[in-house]
């Protein structure tokens, strides 16, 4: 008897709790910045493309939905000649973001990607590239990498000695 009354009381109490149902799409749920949604390509603090077309994202992708081709600019900087993600295959696992050595590829909290035509799910570089640096505002790969591609000269990067003079025979 007592337990039945308690149950009734509990149910009655619930009529005053606010509902969990969200009136999507009128109401948008909060998605944390680290949420794994639509993939973007970011730029470094200097405004250049971060992607160096190293192919690691494509290699790690479990559904093989990333294809890209490396190319060189006039300074010898590696850049993606094309960068394509087939979102109709993408499972938003975020492994590409983890694999990316330059923080170029990042997942965003945008999940609204429905299309009537599946072909529209194929994103090229111009669709993926954003203007900002995304979640990692300060990192510039070419400042720490040993290669000179016009970002810094040899030896002026982080933690680098000035170039050696191999003609010197001093001990």
């Amino acid at each position: 008897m007592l337990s039945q009354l308690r149950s009734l009381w509990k149910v009655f109490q619930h009529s005053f709790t606010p509902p969990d149902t969200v009136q999507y799409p009128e109401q948008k749920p909060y998605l944390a910045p680290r949420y794994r949604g639509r993939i973007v390509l970011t730029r470094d603090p200097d405004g250049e493309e971060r992607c160096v077309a190293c192919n690691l994202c494509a290699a790690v992708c479990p559904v093989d939905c990333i294809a890209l081709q490396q190319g060189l600019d006039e300074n010898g900087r590696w850049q993606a000649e094309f960068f394509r993600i087939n979102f109709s295959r993408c499972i938003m696992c975020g492994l590409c973001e983890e694999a990316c050595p330059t923080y170029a590829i990042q997942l965003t909290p945008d999940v609204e990607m429905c299309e009537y035509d599946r072909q529209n799910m194929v994103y090229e570089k111009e669709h993926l590239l954003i203007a900002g640096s995304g979640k990692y505002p300060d990192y510039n790969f070419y400042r720490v990498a040993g290669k000179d591609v016009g970002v810094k000269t040899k030896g002026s990067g982080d933690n680098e000695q000035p170039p050696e003079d191999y003609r010197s025979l001093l001990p």
Partner: protein
Amino acid sequence: MVTIDVDGRRYQVEAGQNLLQACLSLGLNLPYFCWHPALGSVGACRQCAVTQYMDADDNRGRLAMACMTPVSDGLRISLQNDAEKAFRSGIIETLMSRHPHDCPVCEEGGDCHLQDMTVMSGHHRRRYRGAKRTFHNQQLGPLVRHEMNRCITCFRCVRFYRDYAGGHDLHAMGSRDRTYFGRVEDGNLESPFAGNLVEVCPTGVFTDKPHGESYSRKWDLQSAPAICVHCSLGCNISPGARYGRLKRVQNRYHPDINGYFLCDRGRYGFRFTDPDRRLLQALQRTEEGEETLSTGNALSRLWHRIKQADQHLIGIGSPRASLEANFALRQIVGAKNFYAGVSAVEDEMVRLVLQLMYSGVRSASLREVEQADAILILGEDLIHTAPRMALSVRQAVRNNQRRQAEALHIPLWQDQAVRNLSSIALSPCFITSSYRTGLDEVASGLWRNSPQSQTLVADLIANKINEIPSLSKTHSEGMQTWAIMVADALKQARKPLIIAGCSTQYPALLAAAGRIMTALKSHNPAARSAFVLPECNSLGLALLTDNDHENRLEDAFDAAAQGKNHLILLENDLYQRAAPQQVDQFIGQLGELTLLDYQRQRTFSKADLVLPVTPFSESGGTLINNEGRAQYYFAAQPPAPGTMMSWHWLWESRHEARPVDENALHLLQQCAASDPPLARLTELLKQLDLSTADGRLGYMQLPRKSQRYSGRTAIDAADDVREPALAQDAQSLLSFDMEGVPPTQVRDLQLSRLLPMSWYPGWNSGQSVHKFMQEYSDGRPGSGVLMLQPAADHESDLTTLQPDTEVQQTSDQSLTLVPRHYLFGSDPLSMDSPPVASLAPSSCLMLHPEDAQRRGLNPHDLVRLESSRFHLELPIKTDNTLAPGVAAIPWNLPDQPWLPLPQQVELVVVQRSNLIARDGEEPADG
């Protein structure tokens, strides 16, 4: 065989090798850097440390460098104890402390020995906090990129470049941790083997420059076991393709041919296969203009042409097309109407080679070349005509040193110790040529004179070996002495070797070489010969046209004059084979000219039906190399849309609009059955037959793609998001798939030689080849089959090789014009490849400065060459490495007409140069 004990397990290994090599060939993982199977051990990097125990009771042991420890019976070592593991991880940590943080933008990444060894040694976190050392890079030309920061100072580059390949312009400079590997100043690397630095360097200091401009990782490449098409040696290559084009070519180990190294023409000459450089659309040219055709339409046109032409049909084959393609054409037009698509001289010379091979003169493989202890090279500039053979000759001349080392009980893999015997003279190597060759610096005797004089001296050598006194007055005293010296050296040698070939375009010299070979063979059965042929399938074509019919190119010209004027031309440029006037006249007489080709060459503009065929990268086929070895090559990628393999076009056209279920292997079968000289193709078929391999393969094929091939669902998504079906390669041992026999099983299945690219778990770089070493023995699939068996009845034919007594007297005014071959330039296929074309010479006439002075000529003057057979205007270049009385002209440049050479010419000045003359100017060699 000796027994060694590794981590408590006993193994049988070959005696005489070092411990590192033994461990690697057993399939054990032991990290190393400075050792290389072809370069030997120097013990510089200290990475291959193992613990060596005195005996079974010793449980302390001592650290030893595996690469410097010879294997001995009862040797007991451990690879996996803490002491050696800690030592090895300490070494790699030190090596990595200053390695730049740039793997993502390094062309070596994923194909990197340093990465593999770092992972293998367990080093994963950088503890060193100091600043990293940096270097400025050098511009090393269009083939190799330099990124010196990545160096770990293993010295492999200079050991290969200088010690092994004989280059002079790459140095180890500086001291302590400043050691720098590069040239004295920026400039093209001069060695024709510079491209091997890409594979020799265990890090990314030297990387493939053309590949780096549009790069794909190794795991993203679709590869195939293929054969190089740029000379007659048939080096094994592994071309890698992605996005419909070849990205790079790497060496594929073949113990008898190329071993670990390729030449730069083979490595960088493949860009003629790029879709934008190639014919991709069937064309018909009528008076109204050009019309593109669909494949089906083109096929039915071809069918109608073949049917209508009937008695008037002739076919011209090609020495650069596969055996299958040539055979298919021969079957279509009939053996009587099938003509060899090579110049008359070349035809004569290749047939001479064939005749010599039949008579029992065995053609040496490159491995046998390396074993020779006395070499005579007649008229060949090997660096430019058969570059990989030149590298083998370079190894062979050190055999004297090796013999001495053996006498002193120095193991041959003790590289530095053997090289310290430099006071020992090199093995004798004699060269006759009209100009300086790339091997002159290792030669012990040179005969630099006109081809006629070389023939005389060769005849004299043959006579001296046969001990026939020579009485001719044409032999000067110098010539006699030289011949005696060479003949004595050849007779004294245990394994003498004669190298001759077709590049002089002078059959008499080859015949004289043949006489030396036969004389020497009867004197010493271990004597070997090696022939250099003009193109990759010259011998195959010669075997197909080796019958009683009149089937030279000239005969085709005659046939056209007699009304046989419907020509099918297979992968050939006639303007490269005969004089332009002659070809123009021939084409003028033709009613129809059907061309099957992939190159926009000179004959292309004259053809009225053009069928686009696939180059080597997209077709499978058989090539017969200079030693008569038939090797099958596989397509790296499926044919581009609109194109088909040559034999496929021809075969399909036999049946109107009906698909044929025949494949290339059936074609080979028919070929073996119909041509007795090619009967041994059945052996090759056994190596390739899926039905015999089935039991081993378990109905799986070898995948052309790696297990980590990326982008499968995105590559074609730009055109259509629905994924296309995979291209099929039924009946083949290889599939265009990622799935199939895993590399770990390839060894057990004895298919190592058919690996599309070298890879093994934990060994991503090309060094993984050690994992398959035990399987590289003869008779396994992919080793090829020697076609030519000496026939007893051919012995008598040699009497026809009489000396050419017709030596033209050189007047004061006339010069002997000879062809000069160029690694980059003389091969029209590779000249369609921008990196190769950028290194080619320009058309010019090379003269000895004295000859130029006598005629009052200065460099850059424009002269007209006048001979009985052609006229040509060319600028002059003086070159003091030419024999006096000889003029040379770059052979087979794309913009140059074919010339009948050698030829006596006179020079007439057309225009004086207003440039300042520079005397003694030399063209860059290599």
